[in-house]
């Protein structure tokens, strides 16, 4: 039997994966969740028909969204992860013994449950004693927090679903308020390549620039995501992502990674010309 899953990258472009079997499918209060097992990408998490992560390339995304700020901020103790019910970001975070508290705000409890059961390789990290999971709307959670976190990681899927509120100016403003005076906020910043995402990419950057004094964008190559070229936003009240990088210090921590590396850190902030222009247009 032949079975294919297609992730629509645009109305006219899609990535298709040959599927061995479907491991799970259900509709939660918020969204439809599927877990598939593919030939070449391993297990695949799909939400509302959109590919969220694959076993094969998730390490790139999760390492890049986590270690870049961790190598810059000298003393992260409290971290807030918005979204991230799959546990990927947390798996990277718990590599740091110095962290004291990791709050995860995932609106959909079913997503957490499904990942724990079907993708335990990633989601088992959520069992770490420092982790607390809040099944709440991220926008509501952040509203009442002031100067509480050193690092906020926004790991929200895309601006068109139930997570739409996590791509808004009010959200970034409230994140600013929830960060300490030297806090850093990292967001997944979509892909600059296809028109619709490029537009979202600009919009996000514009809103963050209006909120934080230091805003830089960096990139990674994530094969299963639209165009494979992905951006992240580094927004900060005090630390500069390159000038304040402590690569040696990070190396000494002995954290094992497969993608991130302080030498790479310098490179990822060097963006292609068209991306620079896209971002400059809204700065």
């Amino acid at each position, binding site marked *: 039997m032949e079975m294919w899953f297609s992730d629509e990258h645009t109305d006219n472009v899609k990535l298709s994966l040959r599927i061995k079997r479907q491991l799970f499918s259900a509709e939660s209060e918020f969204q439809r969740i599927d877990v598939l097992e593919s030939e070449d990408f391993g297990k695949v998490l799909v939400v509302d028909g959109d590919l969220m992560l694959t076993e094969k390339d998730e390490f790139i995304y999760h390492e890049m969204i986590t270690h870049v700020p961790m190598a810059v901020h000298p003393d992260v103790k409290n971290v807030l992860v918005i979204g991230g019910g799959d546990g990927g970001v947390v798996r990277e975070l718990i590599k740091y013994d110095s962290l004291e508290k990791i709050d995860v705000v995932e609106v959909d409890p079913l997503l957490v449950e499904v990942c724990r059961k079907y993708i335990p390789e990633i989601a088992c990290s959520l069992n770490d004693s420092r982790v607390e999971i809040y099944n709440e709307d991220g926008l*509501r959670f*952040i*509203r*009442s927090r002031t100067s509480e976190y050193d690092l906020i990681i926004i790991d929200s899927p895309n601006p068109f679903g139930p997570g739409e*509120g996590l791509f808004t*100016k*009010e959200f970034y*403003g409230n994140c600013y*308020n929830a960060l300490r005076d030297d806090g850093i906020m990292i967001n997944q910043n979509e892909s600059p390549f296809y028109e619709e995402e490029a537009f979202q990419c600009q919009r996000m950057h514009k809103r963050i620039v209006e909120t934080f004094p230091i805003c830089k964008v960096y990139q990674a190559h994530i094969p299963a995501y639209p165009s494979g070229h992905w951006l992240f936003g580094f927004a900060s009240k005090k630390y500069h992502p390159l000038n304040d990088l402590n690569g040696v210090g990070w190396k000494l921590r002995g954290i094992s990674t497969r993608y991130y590396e302080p030498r790479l850190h310098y490179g990822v902030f060097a963006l292609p010309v068209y991306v620079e222009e896209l971002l400059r247009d809204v700065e």
Partner: protein
Amino acid sequence: MDISAQKHAPIYEALERFRKMRIVPFDVPGHKHGRGNPELVELLGSKCVGIDVNSMKPLDNLCHPVSVIKQAEELAAEAFGAAHAFLMVGGTTSAVQSMVLSCCKKGDKIIMPRNVHRSVINALVLCGAKPVYVNPDVDQHLGISLGMKLSQVEEAIRENPDAVAVLVNNPTYYGICSDLRSIVKIAHEYGMKVLADEAHGTHFYFGEGLPVSAMAAGADMASVSMHKSGGSLTQSSLLLTGPNVNAGYVRQIINLTQTTSGSYLLLSSLDISRRNLALRGKEAFAKVAELARYAREEINQISGYYAFAGEKINGNSIFDFDTTKLSVHTLDIGLAGIEVYDILRDEYDIQIEFGDLGNILAYLSIGDRKQEVERLVSALADIKRRYQKDKTGMLTQEYIAPDVVLTPQESFYAEKESLPIRETKGRICSEFVMCYPPGIPILAPGEAITDKIIDYILYAKEKGCSMTGPEDEKIERLNVLKER
């Protein structure tokens, strides 16, 4: 209410039958089910243009309903507890106009609060009736006009026993209700009709724990904006009448100004929305009220904002409050409502209903979800963080009692001249000036202009209120009556 009858939507069903017949159109509209205007089809979809058709026997005729429109009106009347219901396609403005024109002739007096919608005074320009204004009570802290005190209405009725009707906002834009039942009782004792502007009250007919609806209170006519809380398409509306109103005469009045090409998109949207409200309105509005309650609670937690509700009820000028309304007082963070309104739109991509000098109103309806409410609340929190300032020097909304010199009609058609606004003091205005929304006139034709009014207009303009009414679109000049 006969629930099984309410499951029908006669106009919608007739359109469905019509579609299946694949009738060849040699009548208007000329786009012929969209074939002649592909770009329009691209925008609206083929289903939508396919039912944009003309009156014809199987689809009835809005000017003289005998079949499916008549049935739809009967179902609407039953659902709203009215003796008769008219489907309206010219907005609630046309419903309000028809109410006034049905009751008043030239020279007749009509008692009304001054904070009426412009459409009421427009109707007076058309028919020449004289307004007898009852000054609404004002909440000094919030700076909003409230309902009419019963004693004031009673006084106006006693002083003007020759008046033919009393018009009541049920509720005001801010959700505030007067004591409609008692007003009806007194007015009827004096042989006056009671007309209700229910532009913001559709849900009163279906929700629980909401203020009394005009028909339930015994009013004679009510204009109901189905397209606001009822969910139908913009510009569609209902005119309801009670048992003591001659429906045939009202139909004639409506036909004086109503189009003879009533849109079936609007008519079917009324039909479907009435069905939805009759079948599911109670649950739907319970959800809206709960959402509004949640939003108020969250907004009041931010501190600095005040989202007000039932605690304001005083048994008189705030006889009842519509808890689905979300009004927020913003002055205490040092921002005018209109400024918050603009910031929400320009910086947060959130469009709310309106902002006045001291408050904003966010319109919640059957289409809202919690995640959008979270955005609104968070945006307000962020606006406070970024923009909060001292409120000294901020004006609150004021109710300025009008000095009515001439009827709206006399002054509208009188000889006039245009003067710079600063030079109009002491003159009689011949046009409207209002912030839109809410569309409640600061000045209406026939009223004397004072320094206070001029200052108010200029301040509202400076704060960014969108002003309408005058011929001069920049509102730098006003038309006033020529002095004889």
